């Protein structure tokens, strides 16, 4: 079988596609790339289906050896990628031959890179998706939710000949910043939070915590007063901003649990969540309100653009 051999797995490298849809009612987490827009761009550069599987490389360290020849594309944060030791700028597609080595080092800017190949990685889908959800032990390179490690084989296709290299026009490159404003669409228990709690949220800067992961981005900063009562657990959607009793908000991401009972202020705009995925721990976060109509308009444009 053709594909790539993993030489080093890196800090956290995961097979991802658009996620395991339609099983959340059984407690199955959706998964998917945290910076879905960058992942979409990687597939777009190769004319792949929008749900073709890519590799999400968090913070670098992944090293692959090619056992095929194929077009690849790398987007997202700049993790100082080299091809056979030569620096390889991101946000473009390029040709990889048998025996070539791709090596992601440490972040220059951003935090997560996306590697796509023509036709997508052909790992075995589990419940209709190749997405890796470690906590659920589902999907990914072994079907059991494992991250990439040395010795793994990543199957993919083989091209007879090189195709034209493409890059993404400058104006489409996302701004990657460690100083981010997140647009929040109020919802869920918005009316249960006091006026003071909302003022605290709008007027303070929060720091992205070291303890953040694919389940949630944990923020640290001025304590937000929580409603003085408990709520029954309910379905938790992407970007929900929940506030546990310690007053420190957690933004729920792709690997979130399907249900949760903490009070929630609403949800951030997914496009902002994608930018948040490129923030390193320590990044500065502020919140700004957004109407549902405005948020939906922006998302419709995004979904239409990528044919999602």
């Amino acid at each position, binding site marked *: 079988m053709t594909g790539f051999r993993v030489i080093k797995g890196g800090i956290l490298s995961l097979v991802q596609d658009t996620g395991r*849809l*339609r*099983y*959340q*009612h*059984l*407690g*199955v987490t959706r998964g998917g790339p945290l910076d879905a827009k960058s992942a979409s761009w990687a597939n777009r550069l190769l004319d792949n289906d929008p749900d073709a599987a890519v590799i999400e490389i968090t913070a670098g360290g992944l090293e692959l050896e090619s056992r095929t020849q194929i077009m690849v594309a790398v987007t997202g944060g700049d993790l100082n990628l080299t091809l056979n030791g030569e620096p390889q700028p991101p946000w473009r597609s390029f040709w990889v031959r048998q025996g070539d080595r791709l090596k992601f080092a440490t972040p220059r800017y951003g935090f997560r890179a996306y590697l796509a190949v023509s036709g997508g990685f052909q790992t075995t889908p*589990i*419940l209709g998706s190749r997405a890796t959800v470690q*906590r*659920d*032990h*589902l999907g990914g390179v072994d079907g*059991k939710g494992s991250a990439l490690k040395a010795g793994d084989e990543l199957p993919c296709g083989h091209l007879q000949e090189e195709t034209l290299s493409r890059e993404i026009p400058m104006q489409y490159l996302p701004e990657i910043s460690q100083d981010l404003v997140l647009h929040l*669409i*109020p*919802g*869920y*228990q*918005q009316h249960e939070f006091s006026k003071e709690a909302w003022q605290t949220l709008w007027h303070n800067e929060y720091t992205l915590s070291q303890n953040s992961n694919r389940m949630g981005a944990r923020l640290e900063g001025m304590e937000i007063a929580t409603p003085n*009562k*408990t*709520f*029954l*657990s*309910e*379905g*938790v*959607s*992407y*970007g*929900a901003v929940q506030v546990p009793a310690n007053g420190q908000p957690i933004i729920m991401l792709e690997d979130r*649990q*399907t*249900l949760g009972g903490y009070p929630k202020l*609403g*949800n951030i*705009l*997914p496009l902002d969540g994608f930018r948040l995925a490129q923030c390193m721990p320590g990044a500065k976060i502020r919140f700004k309100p957004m109407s*549902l109509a405005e*948020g*939906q308009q922006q*998302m*419709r444009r995004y*979904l*239409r653009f990528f044919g999602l």
Partner: protein
Amino acid sequence: MNKKAKVSEHSGNAENVRDTSRVETPKRPQPTFVNAGVDALLMQFGQELDPCMPGFLASIRAAIIAELSDVVYEVVPSYASLLVYYEPRAVRTYDLEQALETIAEQTPWLCSPWSADAEAPGKLVEVPIYYYQPDDAIEENDMARVCEQSGLSFDEVVAIHSGRDYQVYALGFAPGFAYLGALDERIQLPRLANPRKNIAAGSVGIAEGQTAVYPQESPGGWNILGFSPFVWFDVNGHANGNVDKNTPAQQAALTPVQVGDRIRFKPMSKSAYEQAKAKFFAQQGDST
């Protein structure tokens, strides 16, 4: 758990108001809607833990999937709510609310959760359990503390825990993790102050008004009473021999229970437990 009913009674329509006051449907809940981001609506039916709710929500969910499949792609039930994920390019949020409200109005409120009627929406599933003796040397055995904190003997705890049927209120936390209720008040205990980093698969826990079995090894803060070899989630769709052809295709018999079903714990002997446990972990080893 907040026990106070907060069900919104207003509906703005005189006929409906009369309907909700009728004897046979004294508490029929009306939905309220809140946004849950750009592509999800939370449809809430109050904040009360109500044994009639799971079956009602399961019926509404099935109707939504049948009638609105062109705009709704996923519906996640919980205790008293449905999270409805929709395609924001295919429907306006307000129109979706109207459609969901209509479905809720047309769904019968069949408040007979404990009926043995085969036509009732939920099925009854027996789950074998071995209750740990207070002195069983098992890492996460909390039986001694449960007895002490509840002031009950081991036999009493076992009789109380296995003495009633439980509703499946929700599936969540992990694939196939079923939140079961309501637990008898005499054995209601808070979650552990310091959750364990690792709880073995098959552990049966209690926390406040709920009980559940951990389907896979995971962290957790519930008080552990025993072990069950029951398989709650099978990615190949063979959970405990489930070959239910009537389950919708997208559920594919991955879990032997659904929200709205009922669970009855059936105590097992120590020797049966030891055999079942060995088999259970051998299978776990095969699949993970």
